[in-house]
């Protein structure tokens, strides 16, 4: 009795807040037929939004990947004072509103910003241009890969690497042949989540982009532009591509969690153990 009631409650809530909104995206996108749908996603400004979104993710994700590996190596393999402060600082971008993330870069690189005059003198555009979008996206996705790698590398310990080194491997050989294979699933997991956020980020990018159609509009911004033009079908058509990306991300995430069940524990829960273990 209680069982049925609880399952009913849970499923109703999930249907109302998750499933129906998701289905709405596809229903609205296809409301005027397949031809209109494909016209909306192949129109030049939509294509340039797709291109820009891919470009931004292609820069931001590798930047955070290199950082994530470096941070995890330092934090998981060595003991030093201030480690838990460093972990807290790495998580900081998660606690900052995306709008504030955008604001930071306007204050630094905007016309009235700290470096505004310098940038203008050298004809460099950061804000309201692609570099600003990349910066804001990189900030917002900053912790994703590091926080997946740190607990996994901590749990694995140093024994494998120490063995490799004692057998005569160089530091780089040890990293490429021992560490990287050990952390590959966690790495993929982090990249997957980082990429989903990078491609979907709206608030931070909206503040720094200037929203110029076909120039500085990423896919989420293009959705907003179309929506505010009352071009609902086209807005939902582009949105449906992002929804597909989200679904692919969820499938990939489930697959990786099946390969390595430890990945399932939430970042937060693992964080606590990571801090407790040092």
């Amino acid at each position: 009795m209680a069982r049925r009631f609880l399952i009913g409650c849970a499923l109703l809530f999930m249907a109302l807040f998750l499933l129906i909104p998701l289905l709405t995206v596809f229903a609205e996108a296809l409301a005027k037929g397949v031809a209109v749908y494909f016209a909306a996603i192949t129109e030049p400004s939509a294509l340039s939004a797709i291109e820009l979104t891919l470009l931004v993710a292609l820069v931001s994700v590798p930047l955070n990947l290199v950082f994530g590996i470096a941070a995890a190596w330092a934090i998981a393999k060595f003991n030093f004072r201030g480690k838990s402060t460093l972990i807290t600082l790495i998580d900081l971008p998660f606690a900052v509103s995306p709008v504030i993330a955008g604001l930071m870069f306007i204050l630094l690189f905007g016309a009235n910003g700290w470096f505004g005059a310098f940038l203008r003198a050298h004809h460099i555009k950061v804000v309201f241009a692609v570099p600003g979008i990349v910066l804001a996206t990189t900030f917002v996705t900053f912790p994703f890969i590091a926080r997946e790698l740190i607990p996994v590398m901590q749990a694995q310990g140093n024994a494998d690497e120490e063995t490799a080194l004692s057998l005569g491997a160089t530091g780089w050989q040890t990293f490429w042949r021992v560490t990287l294979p050990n952390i590959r699933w966690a790495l993929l997991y982090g990249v997957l989540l980082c990429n989903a956020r990078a491609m979907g980020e709206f608030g931070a990018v909206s503040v720094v982009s200037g929203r110029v159609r076909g120039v500085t509009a990423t896919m989420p911004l293009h959705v907003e532009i179309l929506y505010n033009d009352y071009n609902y079908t086209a807005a939902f058509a582009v949105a449906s591509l992002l929804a597909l990306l989200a679904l692919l991300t969820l499938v990939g995430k489930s697959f990786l969690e099946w390969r390595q069940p430890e990945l399932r524990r939430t970042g937060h829960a693992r964080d606590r153990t990571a801090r407790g273990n040092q």
Partner: protein
Amino acid sequence: MDAFAAPRPQRVLPGFGLTLGYTMLYLCLLVLIPLSAVFIRSFGAGWLHFYEAATAPRVLASLRLSFGASMVAAVINSVFGTIIAWVLVRYTFPFKRAADAMVDLPFALPTAVAGIALTALYAPTGWLGRAFATFGVKVAFTPLGIVVALTFIGLPFVVRTLQPVIEDLDREVEQAAATLGASAFQTFRRVLLPVLWPPMLTGFALAFARAVGEYGSVIFIAGNMPKSTEIAPLLIVTKLEQFDYEGAAAIAVVMMVLSFTIMLGVNALQDWAVTRHGER
């Protein structure tokens, strides 16, 4: 970098200096310096200006709305998120794996997409909006719409925080309680709730923190009328568009300090709960 010197002198693995140095450099350039710019800039026109910018009626109204709606949404999520986590761990039913994966949808779905989808659904012409309208309830373009969007955004935090805790629960304790004659409600109240409420609080805090800063999913459904349905992040954007950088920075600082204080409060409450529970 004395504060980060290693206490153990003998290090077998290479790369400590390189990786920690790179981590610190990247962290400073991308996070710490830009964030400090917000704080410094907010006081750039003097304390008085900061105070005036932060306490203008329109600003206070937006802060009240942002924090209030986030609180309501986080409470809703704490209740239903716990039920969902419980159902996903303890029961089997068709499509359970799909339902479990779906919980992460708000993490994966871009906020703007969620925003327009929820608006289309809950607008007076929308599928659910029409249903609510028959009861005389308006959802979209009212504070209720903001709560809907923030509930969507915060749900996974509660579910994912509670799932591992429920998985680790010892079922024998519940069975023992039932054997000793406790009703289902008594078992819940006396056995489960003391263990569940600290992680519920964590989930609440995470959902709340995320909701306070949320922008993309809210602005479409909110209506964005000053003093009634204008959230604080939107007001920051508005100030920026008027080139009032100090005013925008001031709201940002108030938001960050307020959420940080609330997080500290929740942490303290949690520590208190854990010690009290442990002593019994």
